[in-house]
């Protein structure tokens, strides 16, 4: 089957080509068939190839397929060639499988939209670009996919471009991720200069021989690559675009801004793990950024009122967990959290989209309420998603992955009690806002009357995702509870195992603390948001708390900070430099010529006498010159 590897990204590309070229002339059913069908077929092929891979892993650890020679300039050669090892296998399966479910959901969700074909064309192109990103065997092709997903993200955030806020959000996302991308491409240049290759297996093999551990060059390269990941994965300090990116349709948020694209940074770091392992500083920076981001974004998620913004901040926070895990060297734990997070966060976004549509595009959670009886399926699936997000012990997938990260945040070689504390605080916050979301949206009085309930095309993907949000956790148990570690066995074919510190307290202590904190978070949410809580009322009276709430609501005012630090100085400079200083040189040349012209044109005064005098003076001058010389 592995000779059909190329079909996985090519089918979505074909879908994109057909829909973008002929989309206007096709019927809606046909568009839906091509748009969702291409992804479903590609998911099917991906599953079959993965099954083959898992049954009999290839000796080299990867399936490779060279499609054609892309270009060759100097020493840089880039092939369009695909490579599937254990790490990309996980990503490919998630992208195609969840992508297929989201496409099926979109058939119903977008059916009223007049740009039906444009939506599916962009979504197909996104899946193609994302698959290119994870299947590329050299960094040039990977960068193509990297920019491709950025483009599609831009197109889909601004999908409803008539509203100014939407295209502004799209521009913001594009520009901010571009900052990270620029750093990343510089990192790639540097890597090529040092190693002379951008072929990923070569880089991983050569890097340890070329660089000493902790040398300046490798640290610089790792930090530059990390910056690329930070931009794409919306981590501190480039996280501000993701909450605004919720302007796009809900399936877009589910696919791009929760399950796949925003985890591209995680993939990049995991893929380049050798470089990061060589640079302890870069690892520490990754872990610290992850830990701080998960805390900051979690705090903001607690006070948001827009259902999608709650989920957006929660996504930033969960990716923070992944970065933390990468930073402490818990590679497989990070990928496992990506794996579970993709299911439950896609589920939450799709369910939120269903709620929003049923309530006539109402985004404010405090205008929802009481939907438990009206929309039972949505309620149960959403609750399962939220429980997984809150890491409800032993039942949900989120527990297994987050518990691993918490344990490694303390015990892994790069771990530190401070990182663990932040992660634990994050776990409390996550459980709290998940509970708040459920209670506010589904309990209490009904404030908006629901319209049409979602049909089977929307409900079935939700149910499937809900099933996986619970079930995928069981393939990887904590070591001390049950000896099931299917996931890490697969991933460790491509990534190194986590090394632990010595003299650790028993793991069960940490697990109990984590469980306790999650339950405490849920209980706090229950106390504050079930019915009318007096405590909450009293807090709302307090001015100090309300200003803190406002500060968190605005996402720690990062936008305002950047406005003051970057935007305003820039506008100030442009204002004082309206007539460009560097243009002065060129305008000066033109001005000098103009002045000389005026000077000489005085002599052309039309007076015959003046001309004769001129001739005379000229002759006298020449004669004098001849006499003198």
């Amino acid at each position, binding site marked *: 089957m592995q000779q059909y590897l190329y079909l996985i990204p090519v089918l979505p590309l074909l879908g994109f080509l057909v829909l973008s070229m002929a989309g206007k002339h096709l019927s809606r059913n046909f568009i839906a068939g091509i748009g969702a069908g291409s992804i479903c077929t590609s998911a099917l092929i991906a599953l079959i190839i993965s099954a083959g891979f898992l049954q009999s892993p290839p000796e080299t650890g990867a399936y490779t397929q060279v499609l054609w020679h892309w270009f060759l300039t100097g020493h840089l050669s880039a092939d369009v060639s695909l490579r599937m090892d254990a790490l990309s296998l996980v990503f490919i399966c998630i992208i195609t499988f969840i992508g297929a479910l989201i496409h099926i959901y979109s058939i119903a969700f977008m059916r009223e939209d007049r740009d039906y074909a444009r939506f599916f064309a962009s979504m197909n192109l996104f899946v193609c670009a994302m698959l290119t990103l994870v299947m590329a065997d050299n960094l040039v092709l990977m960068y193509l996919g990297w920019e491709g997903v950025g483009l599609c993200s831009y197109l889909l955030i601004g999908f409803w471009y008539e509203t100014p806020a939407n295209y502004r959000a799209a521009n913001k996302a594009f520009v901010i991720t571009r900052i990270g991308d620029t750093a990343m491409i510089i990192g790639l240049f540097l890597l090529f200069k040092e190693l002379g290759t951008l072929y990923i297996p070569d880089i991983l093999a050569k890097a340890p021989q070329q660089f000493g551990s902790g040398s300046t060059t490798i640290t610089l390269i790792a930090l530059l690559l990390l910056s690329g990941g930070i931009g794409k994965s919306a981590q501190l300090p480039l996280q501000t675009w993701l909450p605004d990116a919720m302007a796009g349709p809900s399936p877009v948020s589910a696919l791009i801004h929760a399950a796949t694209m925003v985890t591209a940074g995680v993939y990049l770091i995991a893929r380049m793990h050798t470089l990061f392992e060589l640079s302890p500083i870069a690892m520490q920076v990754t872990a610290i950024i992850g830990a701080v981001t998960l805390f900051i974004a979690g705090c903001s998620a607690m006070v948001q009122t827009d259902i999608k913004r709650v989920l957006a901040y929660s996504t930033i926070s969960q990716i923070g967990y992944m970065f933390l895990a990468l930073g402490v060297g818990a590679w497989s734990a990070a990928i496992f959290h990506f794996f579970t997070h993709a299911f439950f966060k896609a589920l939450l976004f799709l369910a939120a989209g269903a709620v929003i549509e049923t309530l006539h595009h109402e985004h404010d959670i405090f205008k929802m309420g009481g939907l438990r009886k009206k929309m039972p399926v949505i309620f149960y699936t959403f609750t399962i998603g939220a429980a997984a997000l809150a890491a409800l012990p032993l039942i949900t997938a989120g527990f297994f992955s987050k518990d691993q990260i918490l344990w490694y945040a303390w015990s892994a070689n790069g771990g530190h009690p401070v990182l663990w504390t932040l992660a634990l605080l994050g776990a409390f916050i996550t459980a709290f806002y998940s509970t708040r979301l459920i209670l506010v949206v589904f309990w209490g009085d009904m404030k908006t009357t629901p319209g049409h309930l979602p049909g089977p095309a929307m409900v079935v993907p939700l149910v499937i995702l809900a099933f996986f949000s619970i079930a995928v956790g069981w393939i990887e148990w904590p070591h001390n509870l049950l000896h099931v570690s299917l996931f890490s066995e697969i991933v460790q074919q491509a990534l190194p195992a986590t090394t632990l510190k010595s003299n650790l307290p028993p793991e069960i202590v940490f697990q109990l603390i984590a469980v306790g904190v999650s339950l405490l978070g849920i209980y706090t949410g229950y106390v504050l948001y079930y019915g009318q809580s007096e405590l909450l009322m009293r807090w709302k009276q307090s001015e100090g708390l309300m200003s803190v709430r406002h500060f968190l609501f605005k996402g720690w005012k990062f936008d305002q900070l950047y406005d003051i630090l970057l935007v305003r100085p820039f506008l100030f400079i442009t204002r004082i430099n309206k007539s460009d200083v560097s243009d002065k040189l060129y305008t000066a040349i033109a001005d000098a010529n103009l002045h000389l012209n005026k000077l000489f*044109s*005085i002599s*052309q*005064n*039309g*007076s*015959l*006498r003046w001309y*004769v*005098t001129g001739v*005379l003076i000229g002759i006298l001058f020449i004669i004098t010159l001849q006499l003198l010389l």
Partner: protein
Amino acid sequence: MSIVHAHTVLIVAAILFVLGLAGVLTRKNIIFMLLSIEIMLNAAGLAFVAAGSRWQQPDGQVMYLFILAMAAAEVSVALALVLQIQHQHKTLDVEELKELKD
């Protein structure tokens, strides 16, 4: 008949030339300016004849014939122009005729 020295004739030619030049520079009427140019041409012709007689060569007189022919041609064109100027501008004053000013 006393021999006239070449340099005496040259001095006369120079005086004629300067007179003509002064006329061109100072006169306002175009016809007088043309007359002054004729005087300058004749001064040049006189200098050629004097030089021809000094070195006993015919070239000087040949050159004078050329100058004569050229002066005749020039005057015919110039007078036609003067007629046109008078016709179009109703004046022959060079101070007034400054249309080619920048």
